[in-house]
């Protein structure tokens, strides 16, 4: 439970008296939500523009060389000129990232469910998982290139899968296990089977944990895919494209590829936010007008 959640709960509890008078529920939505929406995104948009303008202005003012830091205008023009190539590379990398993400997340969910269901499995598995999580797994990339053939996208997916596996698995397992004991007593009192308790209490309870870890994993998956590409393989992917253009001192091209990676990363993240809203409309972080 987040700190915010606690604060909201407390404010509800102190509101008992006013609710007692009219028996009216606390909270609710209003037209203020629309204003809040603008108020929420406007500052971010403004500061984004300010950063870009400062970047452009300062690189011009101090005459910073393009090979050190290209101006945003140079990056944008390269981005438009090389549109087909960078986006082609971008989608190949995205394919590796999403493929690895799906494999890693599926494996993580299966492990979490097993860990929540069987104590023996949990006690045997979790310590290993936690120590594996502390290992910089990206170091495995050359080995996976060797295992799965350096030219196959599978070798990159394997790296991504292993990188996203641990945060998702550890967070989801926590969500499945850290259930309010009185909710478990309630389920026992109505003679619910372990499967019913899993389905009706543990899994819904784990959803916020799962989505928090999926947001982290979405960013990690692109990072892992690009870093895995640095270790070699086909040339028409973002990692290799960035290396090649940088080696040729075509830095605006390299930056255009980074821009593509960033757009893909943000899109992936936003899709997961959308899925979160779809799957848990009840969650505190999504309550409008609070």
């Amino acid at each position, binding site marked *: 439970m987040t700190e915010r959640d606690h604060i*909201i*709960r407390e404010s*509800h*509890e102190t*509101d*008992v*008296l006013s*609710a*007692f008078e009219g*028996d009216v*529920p*606390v*909270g*609710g939505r209003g037209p203020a939500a629309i204003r809040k929406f603008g108020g929420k995104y406007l500052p971010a948009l403004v500061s984004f523009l300010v950063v870009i303008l400062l970047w452009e202005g300062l690189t011009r003012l101090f005459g910073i060389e393009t090979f050190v830091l290209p101006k945003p205008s140079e990056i944008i023009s390269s981005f438009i000129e090389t549109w087909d190539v960078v986006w082609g590379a971008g989608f190949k990398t995205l394919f590796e990232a999403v493929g690895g993400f799906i494999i890693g997340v599926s494996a993580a969910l299966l492990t979490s469910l097993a860990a929540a269901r069987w104590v023996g499995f949990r006690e045997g598995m979790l310590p290993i998982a936690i120590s594996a999580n502390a290992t910089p797994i990206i170091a495995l990339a050359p080995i996976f290139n060797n295992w799965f053939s350096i030219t196959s996208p599978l070798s990159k997916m394997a790296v991504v899968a292993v990188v996203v596996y641990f945060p998702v698995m550890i967070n989801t397992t926590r969500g499945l296990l850290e259930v*309010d004991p*009185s*909710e478990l*007593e*309630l*389920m*026992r*009192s*109505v*003679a*619910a089977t372990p499967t*019913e308790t899993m389905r*009706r*209490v543990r899994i*819904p309870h784990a*959803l916020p944990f799962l989505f928090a870890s999926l947001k982290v994993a979405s960013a990690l998956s692109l990072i892992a895919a690009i870093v895995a590409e640095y270790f070699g393989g086909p040339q028409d992917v973002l990692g290799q494209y960035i290396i090649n253009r940088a080696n040729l001192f075509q830095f605006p091209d390299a930056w255009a590829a980074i821009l593509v990676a960033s757009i893909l990363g943000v899109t992936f993240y936003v899709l997961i936010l959308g899925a979160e809203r779809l799957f*848990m409309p*009840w*969650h*505190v972080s999504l*309550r409008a007008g609070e």
Partner: protein
Amino acid sequence: MTMVVDARGVGKVFGSGVDAVQALADIDLVMETGDFVSLIGPSGCGKSTLLRLVADLLEPTSGELLVNAKTPSQARLDRDYGMVFQSATLLDWRTVRKNVELPLEIMDFAAEERSRRAEEMLDLVQLDSFADHYPWQLSGGMQQRVAIARALAFQPSLLLMDEPFGALDEMTRELMQQEVLRLWGETGISVVFVTHSIPEAVFLSRRVLVMTPRPGRISSEIAIDLPPERDLSTRESPRYFELITEVREALRRGES
């Protein structure tokens, strides 16, 4: 007449060896159908433990305990009792209606029957207009009323309440007590009510069992001979104050 609760010489020890703690000893408790019994005592006197033994959330280590003439485990599997906890324990992701339907879903009631009973229960606790709200939109008292509706939805013969109003303010608490008495009168259910509030125990119960700690025992039983119809005037009657004093003195005797 079968006894709803029949406990003879029941004891409960937590842990074993040198760490063993005797939580309850020599508990005798016989409850007839329709009775309303409160367990009162200081923290650590084992009143919640006793309730959990009846609910088969814990197992006694000695003595004999029957619920509806069955083992507590069998009574739980037969869904003989409904339980209300200190916190409302509503599932955040379910609306009020879906929370009330939860036990019915587990018991495989058909969808129409579930919604019919949920409506009926929400009517009973006067929350019918809040059926589609989420728990966080309700005040503490309303949440606890939903928990009561949920406990009654499958028409158990016994209602177990574990300090259900402990987190509520005094005024809401008094309203809720009135509500519980009304439900008790309308449904004829038997109630075991755990509390640490003396006025609450006296106002609600037909019998108050005073418990003392280390180990938890029932030290005295006080019959509450207030008229069956209880309301605000009951709270102002001299007999009510006499009974409160009686319970308080019993609690104090237990401490010394």
